[in-house]
């Protein structure tokens, strides 16, 4: 039972229980207007306990109750073949694949930009402002254009979505790595100078290892952002597949339960990615002799 005391199990469980209680209450409150309207129109006798019961079991609630979302998730994850258009596994995988490709592209781009900015002073002055400006453009505005322009030259499917995702996620990596690659102790840099080390030796033997904490911190932010990018990339272009498509069709047809279960799956995916990054970080840090 010792792990119970040392792990964060209780604090997480407490927050979860608290949120659930609030949620059920909110579901009653938010759905009551619609229900009371319906009772009045159909002249149905009602009391509070009937209201509560009905508000947790509506087909198209304003706010679905947690168990409705869970049941819908269970049905759409385990209830269909994973190749079915109704399966959340299928839609989830479509989003995951463009997230991962987008993250990989964003990571490479971000790191290359940071290396350039740290080593070439003209890049520092010219590129950095553009990188920051790039993030002031709302992604919702630029995403359809990326899809349309790439579609016009015959690029469709996963790649345009991955590009939108990369557009969002390279930024924290570039900024984090500029900071990280500049973080070596001046004494460590002087040491390299006394050995007459070349720029690339200083990079591989000093700047890169020093920046690993920054790398993982920005990876954790970026992987979650690149999921958002992938979902946003699925919204235009008819939205045939992916969690973004589920959100869009859900809102077309007022399927709030479907929207919520797609949101839940998206946050479970994001949470798992961040967790995987933390596991990787711990492995790398252990190999780098960080005190446990």
């Amino acid at each position: 039972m010792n792990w119970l005391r040392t792990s964060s199990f209780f604090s997480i469980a407490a927050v979860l229980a608290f949120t659930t209680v609030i949620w059920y209450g909110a579901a009653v409150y938010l759905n009551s207007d619609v229900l009371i309207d319906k009772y009045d129109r159909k002249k149905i006798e009602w009391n509070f306990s009937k209201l509560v019961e009905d508000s947790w079991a509506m087909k198209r609630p304003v706010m679905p109750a947690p168990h409705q979302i869970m049941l819908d998730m269970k049905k759409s994850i385990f209830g269909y073949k994973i190749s079915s258009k109704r399966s959340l596994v299928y839609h989830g995988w479509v989003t995951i694949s463009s997230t991962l490709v987008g993250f990989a592209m964003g990571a490479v781009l971000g790191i290359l930009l940071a290396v350039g900015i740290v080593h070439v002073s003209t890049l520092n002055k010219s590129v950095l402002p553009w990188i920051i400006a790039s993030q002031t453009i709302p992604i919702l505005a630029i995403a359809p254009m990326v899809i349309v322009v790439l579609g016009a030259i015959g690029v469709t499917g996963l790649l345009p979505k991955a590009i939108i995702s990369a557009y969002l996620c390279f930024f924290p990596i570039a900024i984090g790595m500029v900071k990280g690659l500049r973080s070596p102790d001046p004494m460590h840099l002087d040491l390299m100078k006394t050995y007459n080390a070349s720029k690339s030796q200083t990079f591989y033997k000093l700047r890169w290892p020093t920046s690993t904490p920054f790398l993982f911190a920005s990876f954790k932010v970026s992987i979650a952002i690149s999921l958002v990018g992938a979902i946003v990339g699925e919204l235009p272009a008819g939205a045939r597949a992916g969690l973004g498509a589920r959100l869009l069709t859900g809102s077309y047809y007022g399927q709030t339960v479907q929207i919520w279960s797609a949101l839940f799956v998206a946050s479970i995916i994001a949470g798992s990615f961040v967790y995987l990054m933390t596991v990787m970080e711990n492995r790398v840090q252990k190999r780098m002799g960080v005190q446990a």
Partner: protein
Amino acid sequence: MKENTRVVEARKVDLVFQTSDGPVHALSEIDLEINKGDFISLIGPSGCGKTTLLRLIADLEKPTGGDIQVNEMTPEEARLQGAYGYVFQAPALYPWRTVEGNLKLPLEIMGIDKTEQARRSKEVLEMVDLSGFEKKFPWQLSGGMQQRVSIARALTFNPDLLLMDEPFGALDEIVRDQLNEHFHRLWEETQKTVVFVTHSIPEAAYLSTKIVVMSPRPGKIIDIIESTLPEKRTLDMRDTPEFLALSHRIREGLRAGHSYD
């Protein structure tokens, strides 16, 4: 017994730093000669430019006036040839490398082959009495041990000149005494030329063949004292009249250079 090969020669060296507060005169009219096998201490209060002078010899700073030569070359040429090993105030070990990995760092950069890297790191680790600690990470060692690794790292590529910037300054007195004794022995065995920055009078007196006393604002040399102590030294010697006389002279120099303003 020592032939007078000139290792460092400074003539009227000046260094002015341009800061946002206006120019700071760090060093003024420094004349200094260091011969092969000398153990030179630079001693003085904070801000007297002793570290800056060491950094000039190491080509980590450039003088704004005068001339400085290391092994009859410019400091830059000497640095490019790996003429010196530099030991910093802090151990400055790379925390992600083991002791052995840290010792191999300069050798990797200089392109020395793997078997030779292993042989030399083993050899220098023996010199500082740390055999068996190869696989430890820096945080697993005490401060004194870390500084010994840092000295060993400066010895791996066998430079003739060691530049040391208050290497024992952050250690407690007991460890410091031990390291002084140990390092004195190491110096005798290896016959290196050492330039040693300190602000401890007993340390300077115990280790040096020549003590350079400096004063601040602007940093300048006010006295150069030839040690009168015998070659062979023990810690007990610090209670002898000669040692006390030497310490007294250093202290007088420091006091003369200190304007109480």
